[in-house]
């Protein structure tokens, strides 16, 4: 699917996986990094909802595992968050943090990726002084990076 097919003006929901870049306003980037630090060294997770006008909603979801190596979104919080994404027809971004490794999907991330229309964003705190966010589509085990533009 090419970027040209993305409908950014009509009434159709945003399909995050079709975007040519994930655009994060600076305050959203800062909120993601702050969320990642908030439970350090445990992994945090949540959803972003992309609006057609470029605004981004941050919806933190509890990590039911509270682990440094693993996350599972709390099922009831996930249900509520995903309903909000669907009801408001927002583009779906699934994010989590890697506190000690680079922002690249792990074998675990790839194995569990069940949302082909979503972008998967990873916030890394590996370099404490230079936190970063990278984004990917993960479809049938295939990982494709999508640029993240902050600001």
């Amino acid at each position, binding site marked *: 699917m090419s970027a040209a097919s993305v409908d950014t003006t009509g009434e159709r929901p945003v399909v995050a996986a079709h975007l040519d870049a994930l655009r994060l306003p600076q305050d959203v980037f800062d909120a993601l990094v702050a969320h990642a630090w908030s439970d350090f060294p445990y992994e945090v*997770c949540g959803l972003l909802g992309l609006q057609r006008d470029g605004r981004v909603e941050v919806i933190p979801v509890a990590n039911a595992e509270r682990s440094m*190596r*693993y996350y599972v979104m709390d*099922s*009831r919080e*996930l*249900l509520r968050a995903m309903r909000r994404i669907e009801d408001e027809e927002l583009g779906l971004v699934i994010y989590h943090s890697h*506190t000690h490794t680079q922002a690249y999907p*792990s074998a675990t991330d790839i194995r569990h990726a069940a949302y082909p*229309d979503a972008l998967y964003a990873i916030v890394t705190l590996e370099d404490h002084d230079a936190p970063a966010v990278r984004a990917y589509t993960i479809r049938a085990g295939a990982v494709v990076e999508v640029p993240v533009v902050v600001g």
Partner: protein
Amino acid sequence: MAVVRIPTVLRPHTGGEARVEVDGATVGEVLTALVADNPALAERLLEDGKVRGYVNVFVDDEDIRYLDGEGTAVPAGAEISIMPAVAGGAR
């Protein structure tokens, strides 16, 4: 008769339907009826007749893991929600 809410990610396997009405007195019966009507859902929802480990199923927004699993009673008019889990990790 129960209503099953189908999330966007699974609608390609229900012909685009967001809500499907099926019969069943328990979650297991409802899901069996659901996949009988929508066979493409079977491998995504069930494994050896049980709900797959990485699929969340709710009865009126309560996770069946904290109820009676597939044996959870489905009252008339109840709403069943299905949602693939979101999980991963650094390793």
